[in-house]
């Protein structure tokens, strides 16, 4: 049995000694105890057959536990009427599961209509959500098959949010879209979450997705065992055992850097000394690096630069410092105007310190909210 350490918020969903056995003898979930804080994204990861989806589906009684207690908002879910319980919990699945015979607007209005809001009010709410998830108002009259996979998934999220439920269950919602769209949808989810602060349970088998989205990550092993549950930085810095380490992959250190930002990393003014000079536009936006010692002098073509902001990750800084001919990363403010540069060594040193801090945080078992910097 593993108990997930509680976060800052009060607990919203709790599993107490929950097991799920099937008549054919398989155990999907084995004595799970887990508490999910309000307003956090908890990601359940693990290879297929590890019980993560079963765990998620037990929250809205799509699967009923064989033993133990699942409660949402302090109330045992078995005491509630299943249909009413589900109307109060947003549910997003892979492939979106939209109703093909209903327009996008009517799909989104599903739960409000079930709750008896009336057609006019439900439609108005659906139109709001269409905008919230970044779809054009005109798409409301279309049918699901007329939308791309990514758009359908946005509709799936809108439908789940329509009645403003406190809890959102997402079962591999971005598993079926291409990587570019997946990144967009992940960013959208983080943006929505910063506005809405829902308690989100998110299932995926993609550890990178888990690290990107999760306030905490619960790793499951085949047979329905929860192995470790911790904030991403802590998990990456000190995995509980070889299974977790293996699941996190060989580039654990780099993933950890993807969680820290450049904020607080010192910078120096870009000077005119040295071989490589950063050329900027009239407004001060970096345009590229010029080789002052090259045969062409001031006529030399510019080598590309990717300026970074304070909100960008240490991993992208490390990457840019390798790509940059001068070994320097150009830093810009929110408007894209150059503020200074940071050298490769300094980034490396800073990254090492972050790594060590994450490890120490875990060793002391006393989480300092500022130490686990999230992306």
């Amino acid at each position: 049995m593993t108990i997930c350490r509680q976060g800052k918020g009060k607990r919203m969903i709790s599993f107490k000694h929950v097991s799920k056995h099937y008549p054919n003898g398989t155990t999907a979930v084995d004595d799970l105890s887990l508490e999910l804080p309000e307003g956090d994204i908890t990601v359940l990861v693990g290879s297929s057959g590890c019980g993560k989806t079963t765990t998620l589906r037990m929250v809205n009684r799509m699967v009923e536990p064989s033993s133990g207690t699942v409660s949402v908002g302090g109330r045992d879910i078995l005491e509630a009427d299943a249909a009413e319980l589900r109307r109060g919990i947003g549910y997003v699945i892979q492939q979106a599961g939209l109703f093909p015979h209903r327009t996008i607007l009517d799909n989104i209005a599903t739960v409000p209509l079930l709750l008896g809001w009336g057609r006019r009010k439900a439609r108005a709410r659906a139109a709001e959500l269409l905008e919230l998830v970044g779809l054009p108002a005109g798409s409301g009259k279309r049918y699901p098959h007329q939308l791309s996979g990514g758009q359908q998934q946005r509709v799936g999220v809108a439908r789940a949010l329509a009645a403003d439920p406190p809890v959102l269950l997402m079962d591999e919602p971005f598993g079926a879209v291409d990587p570019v769209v997946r990144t967009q949808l992940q960013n959208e989810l983080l943006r929505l979450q910063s506005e809405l602060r829902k308690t989100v349970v998110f299932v995926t088998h993609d550890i990178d997705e888990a690290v990107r989205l999760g306030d905490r990550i619960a790793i499951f092993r085949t047979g329905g065992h929860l192995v470790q549950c911790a904030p991403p930085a802590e998990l990456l810095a000190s995995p509980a055992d070889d299974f977790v380490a293996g699941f996190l992959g060989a580039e654990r250190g780099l993933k950890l850097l993807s969680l820290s930002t450049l904020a607080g990393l010192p910078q120096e003014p870009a000077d005119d000394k040295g071989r490589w000079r950063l050329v900027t536009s009239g407004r001060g936006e970096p345009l590229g690096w010029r080789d002052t010692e090259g045969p062409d002098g001031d006529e030399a073509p510019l080598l590309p630069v990717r300026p970074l902001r304070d909100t960008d990750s240490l991993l992208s800084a490390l990457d840019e410092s390798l790509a940059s001919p001068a070994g320097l990363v150009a830093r810009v403010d929110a408007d894209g105007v150059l503020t200074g540069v940071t050298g490769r060594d300094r980034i490396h040193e800073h990254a090492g310190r972050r790594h060590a801090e994450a490890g120490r945080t875990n060793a002391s078992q006393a989480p300092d909210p500022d130490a686990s910097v999230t992306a």
Partner: protein
Amino acid sequence: MIELLTNLGHWLTSGAQWSGPDGIATRLLEHLQYSALATLVAALIALPVGLLIGHTGRGAFLAINLSGFGRALPTVGLVTLVFLASGLSMWPVYVSLVALAVPVIVTNTYAGMAAVDPEVRDAARGQGMRWHQVLFQVELPLALPLIMTGLRLACTQVVATATIAAYVSFGGLGRYVFDGLAQRDLVQVLGGAVLVAVLAIALDLALAAVQRLAFRNRPAPSQAH
């Protein structure tokens, strides 16, 4: 042969043949009345059964094999059997026509329900729909194209088979076939047969057109995710 066709043409188009209590118009109306009632009763029996099997997933074996059973059922034999049991009434006609239509409707209704994407059904339950809401708001509308196909097939088969009403002394277009056979009047036999065939095909085409019109917004099944 040419003479036969000429006579047939004359038989089908003569005004006298169409009017009166034995006229084609009357027989056509009787034929439609038997067919409509039989199809309606069959639908009332078969639709709930097909929907229930499709929704619960129980009895799928029955639903799949029923249509084969229905095809194998000898209609004339059934008419005779019910006739012997009930005497001279419309019962033999309706029982055998309904027995012919029920399996087709059950099988197609079940097939329509089985073709509903499990993810969509899962999503419907997950949004908080009760079982009857899942059935009537999601499964039934999605199964409707195949259900309509079943009703159309049943309708065509019933119209083509309703000639047996005349076998037990009632009306309908079968009258011409049986009377013609008794009177060795080949033109009358052919005339009756042509009328039944044309009626069945016309109904089939009309219902297919209605179906196309009703589901023009639907994606092709392969895209229906």
